[in-house]
Each structure stands twice: as C-alpha cells, then as structure tokens.
C-alpha cells in the first residue's frame, strides 16, 4: 500500500467518526433539511468532475463527454440541493 492511500484512509476514518458525532443529536424537525443539505454536500464530486475534464489526455473524446456530463449532474445536485434546503429552512419559524 502506497503512503498516499494510507493517508487518505486516515482522513476517511476520522471523517466518519466526526460525521457520526456531528449529526447524532439532530432534532426530528430538521431531518429533511439535514438530508437535503447533506445531499448538496455530496455534490462535492463536482470537484472530481472538473478535474477529470482536463484536456491533456489520450482518450479525449469519450472522457471529455463523461466529464462534462459529470459536471452537469453534480452542478444540478449542488445548486438544487442548497437552494431547496435554503427554501425549506426559511420556512422554519419559532413562535
């Protein structure tokens, strides 16, 4: 196993524990916004999509199309996810 992989694995394990700690006490009122907000965060794959769309490659055509599609879908996920969460949260009011 190469050192980079071990380091990434290290980050993964810590993040999972952090995630469980962060979310474990969310009131049920916020379950939907939490889910759609988290969903927007999962759109982070857009970073991967942009990086994979770089041009200097052998198989330009196919990876170019795949990359553009990835950018498109991830952007829908990110923009839609954050906006819809914001719209929901703006409705939550206290008495």
């Amino acid at each position, binding site marked *: 196993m190469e050192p980079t992989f071990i380091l990434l694995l290290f980050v993964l394990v810590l993040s999972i524990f952090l995630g469980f700690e*962060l979310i474990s006490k*969310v009131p049920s009122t916020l379950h*939907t916004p939490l889910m759609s907000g988290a969903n927007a*965060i999962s759109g982070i*794959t857009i970073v991967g999509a942009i990086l994979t769309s770089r041009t200097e490659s052998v*198989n330009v055509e196919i990876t170019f199309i795949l990359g553009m599609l990835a950018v498109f879908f991830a952007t829908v996920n990110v923009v839609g996810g954050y906006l819809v969460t914001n719209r929901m949260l703006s409705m939550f009011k*206290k008495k």
Partner: protein
Amino acid sequence: MEFLNTIFSPTANEAVVNLIYIFSSALFIIGLKMLGSPETAAKGNLISALGMLVAVVVTLLDQSVTNFQWIFLAMFLGAFIGAIAALKIEMTSMPEMVAIFNGFGGIASLLVGSSEHILSSTDSLGILIPIFLTVVIGGLTFTGSIIAYGKLSGRMNGNPILYKGQQWINGLLVLLLLFFGFEMIVNQGLVFTLNWQVLTAIICLSFLLGILLVIPIGGGDMPVVIALLNSYSGLAACAAGFVIQNNVLIVAGALVGASGLILTNIMCKAMNRSLANVLFSGFGAIVASGTSKGEQGEVRPIVTGDAYLILEAASSVAIVPGYGMAVAQAQHAVRELGELLEGNGTTVQYVIHPVAGRMPGHMNVLLAEANVPYDQLIEPGDINPIIESVDVCIVIGANDVVNPAAREDNESPIYGMPIIDVDKAITTFVLKRSMASGFAGIQNPLFFKTNTRMLFGDAKDSITALVSEFKS
C-alpha cells in the same frame, strides 16, 4: 518577484489549492454542525454552500484545468436546471425531489470514476479498488433513486414488487459484480482483456442492482430508503475522492455517508425493524393476508357539527398528521384550525412520528410551509406519558403510527413499533377517507375504540368544514 514565482510555481500552486481544500472541508463541518439546531440551520446551510463555492472556484483556478468554456457551459446548464427545480417544486413533492438529487450525485460520481479509469493506466490497488467502488455505489444510487422517485411521485406503483427467488437473483448480481471487480483490479483480466468491456459490464450490473434493490420496498418504507440513498451518494463521492486522491471529497463524502446512516438508523428504530427487514422483506405486501382479524366491532362516525362542539369545549388538542395530510394538501387548513383553537384558549400541539410521511421529517416541512411554528411540534415520547389528559387527538391521514396493535397484539407485524398512544386520549377523532387499512395493510383497532370518532371524508374538506364552524 522571487516571492511571486515561488507561489505560482506548479508545486506551490498545488499546496495552496490543497490548503484551500482544507478550509473548505472546515466550512462543511461547521455548516453541518449548525444544521443540527433550528436557530442556526439556515446559516449553517449557507456556510456549507460557501465551502462548496470555495472548493469549486479553487479547482477551476487550478492550472491543469484548461477547457473552461465547456466546463462553464455544463455548470451553467446544471445550475439553471437545479435552480428552477429547487424554486418551483411544491413542498409536498419534496421527497421525490430529494430522491432525484441523490441520484444525480450518484451518477456524477460514477462518471468521474469511469472517466478516470479510462484516462489512467494505473495498476495501483489504492486507485483501482476505489474506481470499482465509485462506479458500483454511484450506479446503484442513480437507478435506485430513479425508482424511489418513480414510486414517490406516483409515476410508478408504490407497492412492493416481489417475485420468487428475489434474494438469489440479487445475490447472483453481487457475485457477478465482484467477479468483474476482480477483472478490473487484476490488470491481466481472466476472461476479458479490454478495460472498457469490464467497465461497461460493471456499470450495467450496478444499474440493474439499484433497480432490483428498491422495487421490493413499499411506499411507507421510503423514509428509510431515501436516508440510505442519501448515505450512498456521500459514499460514492468519498470513493471518488480516493480515485482522484483528493481530501475534500473524502471528508465531505464521509460526512454525508455518516449522516445518512444515522438517519437510516433513526428511521429503522422508529419502526422497530432492522435495516435488513426494511430492505428485503417487502413489508406491506405479505402481511395483508393472514394477520388482519377483519371487523373488530362498531365504528362510531361523527359529523363536523358535533366534532366542532367537542373541540370548542376542549382545553388541550393534539394534532397527529400522517401521509394522508400530504396527499390531501391539508396542511394550511390544519394550521388555520390550530390557530382558531388557540384563539379559543385551547393548547394545541402537533405530534410528529419520525416515520410519518414519505421521508424523514416530511410532516415537519409541510407544517413549516403552512407557518406552524416549529416549537409547537413535538415527538411521540413527549406526549405519550401525559396523553390521558389530552382532551382531543385529531389524527389526520395517519394510520400505522397510531395503531395500538403495535402495543397490544404480539402477532401484529408492527408489534413493538413505538407509536403515538392516541387511543388513550379522552377523545380521538380519526379523519379518514374510508375504512381502508394503512400502508402496512393491517386493521387498526383504534377505529373501534369507544373513545374514537371517525370523521369520514377528504381530510382537507373535513378540516375546512371545522374551520368554517369556528368562524360562524
């Protein structure tokens, strides 16, 4: 000048980009933390969005990215469609909206994994295994979400689809996937020698698996499925992070994966069922026969005029909404009734069961849309100990979550599920279209209790009638 050269040299540039990724990960963590409390949630979402913006901008500024015009075009189209969908959608359609966004995240990760696989000729296990996982998780998240979308939006029948040997077929699919995964990872393939053949096979099998995993799950179990697909979309992004060796994807993906799993667990606990039981049993299809005992006594209907007189005299009222309220779009009428009752000096509370509706927190969102303050919303555990003193419980389109069989009948399929004990209240009104049973297909003894009154008809019409009684 020397200084600038150092900063903008390729290696230093990479370091700066990575530092900014750390910053953006921190924003995700802070944002997610703030999403956990109603006072800070809206701000938390903005902070997390800022983290995303920072990550995207710094990636675009990365020197290895060159074809900006196409990337911008794809981003513009995606942002346009995402924004339109997010701003136009009805609140009652929120479950299918979340499902489809999950699916898009999944397919994006799949595409990233596939593209990287074609681009690179690596034989490192630390890359190839994550590519396999990205494609598989991303693929089944995509098709699974599409099926969930179909079931939630009513484009597909919401009933569980079961057939003989279902588990065997799923098991076979998993084995096939593992075989192709092995082909992909061991570079000198055993049967197939061309990378694209193996990749295509893995994509197709993952798509198929996603479909087959979600079709046996019924509408009422959708809260679990959506939470689980949410978790998967995070895990797919996380796996993609290993493929492109990028920390921000790993951190963000793992956070989403963990939060989705926690929600999944909360939903399962609220039904007193294991995740395996939700995913594989086809609940709702098999229990319809056998366990229902048929008629259990006399039903006592009530008309709105009489219901009004009881409500008018009540000093405490608990409203228990369910999926039926969403279907009837009755949330605004319900809020109006609640306000009139309060104006009349009655204490009004809304009791929300965690699995009421079609996604976690579904009822809370609908009531928030109707301007019900969130501090009026309580959980079953808050009211059950004092429910004997509640004058009237109004059950609006909820069924299984108020079924006393869960407490009393150890042969009932929902036995042991934590419910709202509305049968113990002084009076309970059940608003219902007809005597049909709920999602689980189980007869509800609540309807035959001596303190239960059935208010038949469309939930919205009944509530509106009560509202006009109050106003006249």
